[in-house]
């Protein structure tokens, strides 16, 4: 399994979206989020976008006030994950139009749906924006 979790956290450390690909209890998730957010937010812009944490790596990227953090296994390609984050943001941008933090907050489920299309079993399975968005747009039309 490559990707362990995808987190979106704002500058204040508040979680905006959390998706885990392995089961963690509520307490574990809480502790983990607090720990890694503290770690990543303390870093400067010039430093690496990668942080080692326990037995996995966290790849993070900042967009405006929102941090995207992805926890991956050690053998994962860091730069590719960094670009996966960007692809996710571009996809959301295409869907929402100038996506901002508030879009994700108001449409939490849609942001999750996009992630569901892109990642399964911790693997990146779809990278075509139109393929990712097609089912979501169809669903919107249906309801």
């Amino acid at each position, binding site marked *: *399994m490559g990707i362990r979790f995808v987190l979106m956290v*704002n500058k204040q*450390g508040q979680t905006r979206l959390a*998706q885990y690909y392995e089961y963690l209890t*509520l307490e574990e*998730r*809480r502790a983990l989020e607090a720990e890694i957010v503290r770690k990543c937010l303390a870093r400067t*812009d*010039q*430093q*690496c976008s*990668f942080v*080692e944490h*326990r*037995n996995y790596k966290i790849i993070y990227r*900042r*967009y*405006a*006030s*929102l941090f995207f953090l992805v926890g991956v296994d050690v053998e994962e*390609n*860091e*730069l*590719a994950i*960094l*670009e*996966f984050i960007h692809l996710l*943001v571009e996809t*959301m*941008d*295409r869907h*929402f*139009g*100038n*996506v*901002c*933090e*508030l879009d994700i*907050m*108001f*449409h*939490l*489920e849609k942001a999750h*749906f996009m992630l*569901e299309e892109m990642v*399964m*079993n911790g*693997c*990146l*399975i*779809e*990278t*075509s*924006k*139109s*393929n990712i968005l097609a*089912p979501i747009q169809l*669903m*919107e039309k*249906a309801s």
Partner: protein
Amino acid sequence: MGSQGGFGQSKEFLDLIKSIGEARSKAEEDRIVLHEIEMLKRRISEPDIPKRKMKEYIIRLVYVEMLGHDASFGYIHAVKMTHDDNIHLKRTGYLAVTLFLNEDHDLIILIVNTIQKDLKSDNYLVVCAALNVVCKLINEETIPAVLPQVVELLGHQKEAVRKKAVMALHRFYQRSPSSVNHLISNFQKRLCDNDPGVMGATLCPLFDLITIDVNSYKDLVATFASILKQVAERRLPKSYDYHQMPAPFIQIKLLKILALLGSGDKKASEQMYTIVSDIMRKCDSTSNIGNAVLYECICCISSIHPNPKLLESAADAISKFLKSDSHNLKYLGIDTLGRLIKLSPEIAEQHQLAVIDCLEDPDDTLKRKTFELLFKMTKSSNVEVIVDRMIDYMISINDNHYKTEIASRCVELAEQFAPSNQWFIQTMNRVFEHAGDLVNAKVAHNLMRIIAEGFGGDDDTADTQLRSSAVESYLRIVGEPKLPSTFLQVICWVLGEYGTADGKYSASYIPGKLCDVAEAYSTDDTVKAYAISALVKIYSFEIAAGRKVDLLPECQSFVEELLASHSTDLQQRAYELQAILGLDAHAATSIMPMDASCEDIEIDKSLPFLNGYVQQSLEKGAHPYIPENERSGMIDVSSFRSQEQHEASTHALRFEAYELPQPVMPSRISPIVQASSSELVPVPEPSYHAEMHQVAASLPSVSDTGSLELKLKLDGVQRKWGKPTYSSAAPSTSNAGTHKIQNGAPQPDGVISSSSRAHDISYDSRRQQIEISPEKQKLAASLFGATSKSDKRQSSASQKVSKTHIPAAEKSHLAMNATSDTAVIEKTPQPPPDLLDLGEATVSGSAQSVDPFKQLEGLLDLNQDTSTINSSIVGASRAPDIMSLLGETALNVQGDSVANLLSAGRDDANLLSGFSNTPVRNDHGGCTLVNPTQQLIKGPNAKESLEKDALVRQMGVTPAGQNPNLFRDLLG
């Protein structure tokens, strides 16, 4: 749309989001969420809640859990929502259950049925939604319930369904390989699916399968190579392009697979050389994604059977990484250097200064990666510098996880390469002093073993020296405050075994120290046990040597304290000490032989010395001992439990009725049973047996076993000491080996240019050295050997190498190139050709001449009229529209916040500067040009999104409010 407007969401929901968004602290957020929980608890179980409302409640529950609070009271409602016919509601319900539940949750059983039904649905969106859940919530037991349907869906007409079915099967394989072993061939079939999405997804399970069993998939090498070739040649639909790279994520996955397949397999590797070098050449090293692919190529090159041409281009790429200003690329440079160093050790020398810069960088991530590299290139000539640095770093950090890791690395290196006893002992002391409580207990045992056994050679004097220097340094350290427990145990053990061995220290000095330790760490029973055992050893050695033993007063009081200890173990040891003091020299020698910690000890588990006692008891009418696993027919509850032991131990509910109790054998009930069994049941701690008997000649072996079992578990501990690793002679031989390969697989171009590049590099590094500080030079010299000299040698050597390459390559160029080309062509028509006739198959030629606007394709919506792309005039003409919209709706918005909205994109130009990467910046530089237009267009439906803005403003969330960041465009 609800009466509330834009989102179909209620004012309540908007208020919740608003307050969460504007919460300034975690405490405030918690207050909001707790209030929300109270309200949801009341509302959610009301009857007849409209579905739309329910969906909103479910999402609010998701928020509650996401923000770290328990929402289990509402799980059942999420489960219910999965039954809904409306796809949007159903999928929301499914999403919520995957977020709330794990695969072993009790509620899963209620969902399985729904999943089964949905997998058969005519609506492929419903099937997809169900497959998503299958991947998250189906556990080993429920796999059979959905497996047949999932297998059927592998052939579904919709590619989205096939893709997800493949992943469901993958998940089953992860959960329980045995349940789908017979279906694994399906993955290979799907690899040739004519939809690239399905093919791309199938690479994930195949990667896992190949990781486990490479040899079964060797026949796929050609297939993977040809898929990769087609991907690189832009045969996939354009929508897979990312920043002008053709399907880079699929390329990366394929390279990972090829790396596995080619590892240690020359034949397989030869099939990959051409395509890997093609990809490396095509990579755009100015973009992140290009570098990601490049990095994967290097990983692949270092994994497969080495090819000198590829190694050379990998080395070039690495030096570009290392020279970059971006920390991310430097990190990758260090990482790849570590991979390549095994194949060409000389490469590190070219980059020594870059490595040292990274080592001294304040960025922790980079530093750690560099330590990893140093760990890989440690040899006996540089072990001292490296381990020293590692320990310094270990002391400076607080992260226990990493401290542990680096400590065990230090230990490993020290054991492997230690140049001298003294250095070894000192190094171990430093490691234990600072991370003693973190290192694995094994490490401590290992250290004791090494001190006991020495180098493993025949050199006894060296062993004695090692021990003496250990004793000496421990006596120095032992007085220091707050030593870790593990370290103290080692100290006590060594002082006990060898403290008086060389006669330097008297039998009153060492016990004094040991008592000090026991007193200073009086709460640590393990340390006290080690201390008292050490005293036992020292005194019995004294007795054995025929000297009179006087217990020091502090020892006396220590022993007395232990005699009354709550710990039976400590008590036992204290009594043993007392008993030994009264024995003669002969008995003492057999109890505690000198330096016998390495001797094997035989343990007779049948305890034959008890036979007489057992016999006696049996004669007196005691019932024979029944082993625990045979104790089934007993009457009391405990016997019942042992009968049901299996079920009881798993803590699972039993669904079958209990069996009738079995008739009891009267002879089995006997009052003595309990007593005798409690005496005879084997106890884990051998010291208990001894308790029952007098301290006799049989005791020592028992207690010795005990202490040995406690302290020295050496089975399975690998011996590392003195083992040779890579020698410095390696380069010359590997060069010779690579020559041959060069001839076998020619890479026509780049030979000359890369040799001249080698020139450049060495020239560069020489020039750099003029500017660097002497300390760095010194460090470099100690890490890599001589600096400038070796550099020169390096460059001339590489020159020579590349010169000899040229003729060989040229000669074989024509002939081999032709054959290798045809080989590739011949292979393509096999399974993968489906990729060739993809419906959308774009003409590969067109890819090169992209119109500049299309390059920004990722940011502009395809649905947009071309006219909007073309000119900003359109955007401008929409501006008044926006104003009027805002004027109509935004009642409480002041003029300045309107301006704020319009300029939001621009004053946030610094958003992008979050990335240190120049490549990224380049990318975005392009975006910002179009941005003004985009700003006004607002995505697919400009009007709607403006309404959205206006609406949230109405709700009271304004960009000028407490958290203006909520409005910032993420992409800037």
